[in-house]
């Protein structure tokens, strides 16, 4: 096994996931029962992983990263929305689909124009929902279910259901693999770093935590609740749009069902990253860790020859375990 000794440049998912999993939201690491459980679980995973044939190969690391990218990018955006207290969006896959359609339909205007249009559309659709939630204090789940119906219905109406084909192949540039990694992976890493910086260093990011922790207090204190919430959703929209663009490029055509199970996959990644669904705590890097962890586990199970059902089952149990570990520390209940 010549390849097995060769360490991949970015390392397998679990390696990058590990330190982030442990980071405390406020920065410092405090040993807790749940933290210890997490370390043990991760060590176990690493043990299982490294004893799995072909796990420690460059190709495999690349595959893990690549299969994390689409869901990961959206999940990074979803993290901001969860932190700001809007829980989740149920309209993600519909939005990604519509963006993908627009992206392919505008290829003849040039790649970057098409990208711009697609991102603008994603931001507009999603930020509009964010504005309603932020300024009017609407329930995000009800609103996004409605938005999902509306977007899906309108997309079917206008496209008549036929796939959208690009008139030029300009998008193929986005399928490039510089240094052997697909472009989406770089975008994923870039998005994660950017999101983390926004959250921890910018005024808006810091206000997101405060608003998510206690919306009424934020409002009474005169924090710009509506504006900041809209901003978080706008960022989310840009992330969904990027995913849609990559999905479109990858598939070279777009149909109404392109988004697939993106909605729940993204939520799962954010939750495994330990972001609290009640808002106020979480981190983009940990979401990246969560997304990588899920891909890594799927990968290990796949390499070990487990069937699809077992993979899904394990993913579910993993999410459950992390949710229990993460939320056991807080007694705040979901309201």
């Amino acid at each position, binding site marked *: 096994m010549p390849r097995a000794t060769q360490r991949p440049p970015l390392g397998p998912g679990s390696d990058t996931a590990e330190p982030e999993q442990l980071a405390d939201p*406020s920065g*410092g690491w405090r040993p807790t029962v749940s933290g210890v459980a997490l370390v043990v679980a991760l060590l176990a995973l690493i043990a299982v992983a490294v004893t799995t044939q072909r796990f420690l190969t460059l190709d495999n690391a690349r595959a893990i990263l690549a299969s994390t990218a689409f869901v990961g990018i959206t999940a990074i955006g979803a993290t901001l929305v969860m932190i700001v207290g809007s829980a989740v969006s149920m309209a993600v896959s519909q939005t990604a689909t519509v963006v993908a359609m627009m992206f392919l339909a505008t290829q003849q205007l040039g790649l970057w124009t098409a990208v711009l249009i697609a991102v603008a559309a994603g931001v507009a659709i999603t930020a509009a929902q964010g504005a309603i939630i932020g300024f009017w204090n609407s329930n995000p789940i009800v609103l996004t279910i409605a938005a999902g119906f509306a977007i899906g219905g309108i997309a079917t109406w206008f496209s008549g259901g036929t796939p959208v084909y690009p008139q030029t192949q300009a998008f193929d540039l986005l399928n490039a693999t510089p240094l052997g990694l697909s472009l989406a992976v770089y975008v994923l890493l870039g998005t994660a770093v950017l999101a983390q910086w926004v959250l921890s*260093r*910018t*005024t*808006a990011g*810091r*206000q997101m*935590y*405060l608003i998510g*922790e*206690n919306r*009424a*207090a*934020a*409002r*009474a*204190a*005169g*924090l*710009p*609740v*509506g*504006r900041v919430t809209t901003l978080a959703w706008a960022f989310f929209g840009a992330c969904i749009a990027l995913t849609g663009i990559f999905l479109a490029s990858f598939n070279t055509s777009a149909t109404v069902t392109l988004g697939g199970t993106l909605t729940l996959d993204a939520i799962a990644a954010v939750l495994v990253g330990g972001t609290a669904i009640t808002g*106020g*705590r979480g981190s983009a890097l940990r979401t990246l860790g969560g997304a990588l962890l899920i891909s890594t586990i799927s990968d290990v199970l796949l390499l070990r020859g487990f069937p699809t059902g077992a993979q899904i089952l394990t993913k579910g149990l993993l999410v459950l375990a992390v949710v229990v570990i993460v939320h056991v520390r*807080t007694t*705040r209940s979901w309201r």
Partner: protein
Amino acid sequence: MSGSATVGPLDADVWVEGLSRSFNGVAAVRDVSFAVGAGEIHALCGHNGAGKSTVVKLLSGQLAPDAGRIVLRGEAVDFRSRQAAQRSGVALVDQELSVIPALTVLENMLLGDIHVPFVNRRRWAAADCRRILDDMGLGHISPDQPLSALSIGERQLVEIAKALSQKARLVILDEPTATLSDVETEHVFSAIRRVAGLGCSVIFVSHRLSEVLALCDTVTVLRDGRSVATTPARDLTVDELIVQMLGAAPRRLTATRAWDPAHAPALRIEHLHVPGRLSDFTLTASAGRVYALAGQLGSGASDVLRALAGLHPKATGVVELHGRPLPFRDPVRVARAGLAFVSNDRKSEGLFLGTSVARNLVATRLPRLARAGVVQSRLERRTALALAEQSGLPEGRLDDDVLALSGGNQQKVFVGRCLGGGDVWALLLDEPTRGVDVGGRAEIHRLLREAADHGLVVIFASTELDELLELGDVIVTMRDGRVVNRYEGAVDEALLMRDMTHGVDAP
């Protein structure tokens, strides 16, 4: 659990012996003992964090003791839950309002009462409820009204009425009157006396010491989790009680100083009106002075502040800050204009409890600590340190979550957040010392006085006469949503009381 020979004070109905409880190794209650006789009204006093509520939680089945025992009518009990305590006849009014807005008044009264049958018997229950409400001075409220339609004070009264009507052996009331007006408090006291008269033991917790002495037979004082004294109330004065609580005599505030006329009018409020709550409130406030809005709950005092803070979207009127109109229906623009609001509820509408003290202190001024939208960490840290020092918070706790602070210190964080910097022009505080002990209260009063000295307009609303008199340079009394009188200087408790309870249209 039971049976074993238990000997307590002969006539004791409730006997607590050697009760202890710690949280994460920190003792909240240590070796507390006292006894309450049948029909006795027994007060628990002590400053914030002394352990009163923890004792209450141990007695009412919300917490299990680490050591010690609770004996009810000669039988040792071991409550594993609220229900278990309730089965033994312990009724409770928790420190935090614990009624359900989503239910009707009647449903709230029935909730959790073990005497209420599993299958509903509505008509019978409604009649009972009607009578209980009338006794509590709530004749105007219908049992079928959703609780969400009631004011906070009325909700509190419903909760008290509920506890007193449960045919309990022991009723525990943890700061039941903190949100009540004096008239309402009188109703509560007579109701408490009535159940005590029927042989029920009562444990009463309050920071309003004169009210404690007026109502209770015996007072047990807790200090740092220990019971330091149990004394008949008739043998105590308020000052003596304070000495017991603090272990030393309290520091008195120096008299308010004369107003420096150099300070020009800063905040002009004209014809402020909130439909159904406040009519025609007019006040011109100058920098450097403390304005006190005196009024019971529902008097409109608190609505003045909420309206100014942008939290009453229906408010109308004209408000000017430094001669410029204040967009007072929008909390964001109000804050940007330099008005800081401290609500009367630091938990749900105040602090970010799961966030560190430092981040709470700078929460409202992040834009000013940022360059091009990026928060400057060093500047942030410096500001937090300065604010902590200014508000008398221990520097060592800057990185702790606010949740881990005592109530008094939490309130200091809340007030401290509004201080310092040239970015705040007016402080609006609603009950700035609610539930804060004597020491904490003096600290907060000092902070507010200093803020005024630094040239801020300070307006606060309070229901407590002491506080109004101690702190207010100008006192505006309010009732029924309208201003009754305005005092500068010569005023006394009796005058204030009369204005607040009878208003202008008094006979």
